[in-house]
């Protein structure tokens, strides 16, 4: 669990503030790559990709 969910979410939103859609997308990509490297476990990463794909779309 993320200890302070609201603060994390706000930090994420702050990072994207004032970015063009293209730069925003690249920032997210960098974030995914950095986090993936910190996880470093292929099975966890593949599970995460599957979870993201399976989440219902509004």
């Amino acid at each position, binding site marked *: 669990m993320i200890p302070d969910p609201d603060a994390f979410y706000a930090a994420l939103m702050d990072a994207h503030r004032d970015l063009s859609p*293209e730069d925003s997308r*690249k920032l*997210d*990509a*960098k974030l*995914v*790559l950095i986090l993936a*490297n910190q996880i470093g476990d292929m099975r966890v990463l593949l599970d995460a990709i599957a979870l993201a794909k399976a989440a219902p779309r509004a």
Partner: protein
Amino acid sequence: MSFIQPRYAAAAPRAAEEAAPIVIVGGGLVGLTAALDLAQHGLRSVVLDDDDTVSVGSRAICFAKRTLEIYGRLGLGARFLDKGITWNTGRVFHRDREAYSFNLLPEEGHEYPAFVNLQQYYAEAWLVEACAATGMVDLRWRNAVTGIDGTRLSVGTPAGDYTLHADWVLACDGARSFIRNTLNLPFEGQVFRDRFLIADVRMQAPFPTERWFWFDPPFHPGQSVLLHKQPDDIWRIDFQLGWDADPEAEKDPARVRARVAAMLGDTPFELEWVSIYTFRCRRMQSFRAGRVFFLGDAAHQVSPFGARGGNGGVQDADNLCWKLAAVLRGQAPESLLDSYDAERIPAADENILNSTRSTDFITPKNDAARAYRDAVLELSAQHAFARPLVNSGRLSRPFIGYGLPAPDAPVLRDGAPDWLLRHLGRDFCVLSRGDAPATPLRAVTLGSDVEDHSGLAAARYDLAPGDAVLVRPDQHIAARFRATDAAAIRAAHEACLR
């Protein structure tokens, strides 16, 4: 010094109807390699080529270590080493800084380096000479196959047509294979929506002997560029152009000159050869149709960034020729030939997989792919973890799905420095450490035939005293056992011939 394009005399028909046990269609890199390999196994072949010369342009310039070892076995290794440009290091640049570098051969003690750059026309010209020297290869220039029915070939020449009845056909006629198309065999896969300009440029330039790849360089913004050094002061440059580029307009020499000049600044240069192409990754469902075999680009096609086209094709020939020789000599049943498909399809798939991944990185298919690609490149400046994600081509490595290719090692022969692979030959052999193997097969024993003074041979083959391995004619390790276990050796040899 520069290459003089040979013009070979056209072969006129000898009779309206002829027969030949083995006919190779296509006298390019793969067809000529197969002809030479078959000749060294004692088999005659007829090679039909619709042209009268070798490759125009550098084409498959990067010859990988495994391919060089095959040419070593075929007696041409020294020519590749003497003439070719040896390189082991690749550098990848993003904009104006280095993003990633790799060393493909971090280990000493091999006769051949990771890669030699050499224009394909040199390799083909040497193969033509070597084939002629065997007296076993009937090389017929300007003999175009115009029809195939079973293994009966219709052949057209400037002096008239004839029919050639083959027992076996090796289709080495390239990505647009007439044989494959005429037999209506599917060739399916992926086309990449991108175009590349490929130029051979003659110049004196100070770049080091390394593979250099740029993403988004200042001299060619938004696209990628690849630079390779070749012999004779020829440099190969590949410019990514994008899908919207007009292939005809891009071939205009003035336009190519401007692109090269933007890259090289004031360095004077001459254009030697220019080509435009689109990448495809595809293969046939089976590389065999009855008594017709498909090798090289005729069977499978990859994008060029991993040097997997020419190398893959030579390795097809390496796999098939000894099997065909064993069947035609009556040492193995025809079913042995099914193993060509079983062994080389996974190899082709590995090449296609690597080549597809590289091309996906170099040519992002959508906005997300581009964002990730650029994210990797930007992170790579400061973060080592991102550098291995940079994919400018995963360069050809030996396929290990049907046994490890026999590793080389420095040895002493009568006290003089030598290389182990030179002693494994072109027939089955048993390599052992210490004890002579209990086998009628040819034996190479470390400690008596050659001295493993560095210990590298024992280490690379994991041979304890008394251990042995069976090496196939294509120099792949087939089985391991104790040198004294005659039954195991016999069983392993028989298993290789089924």
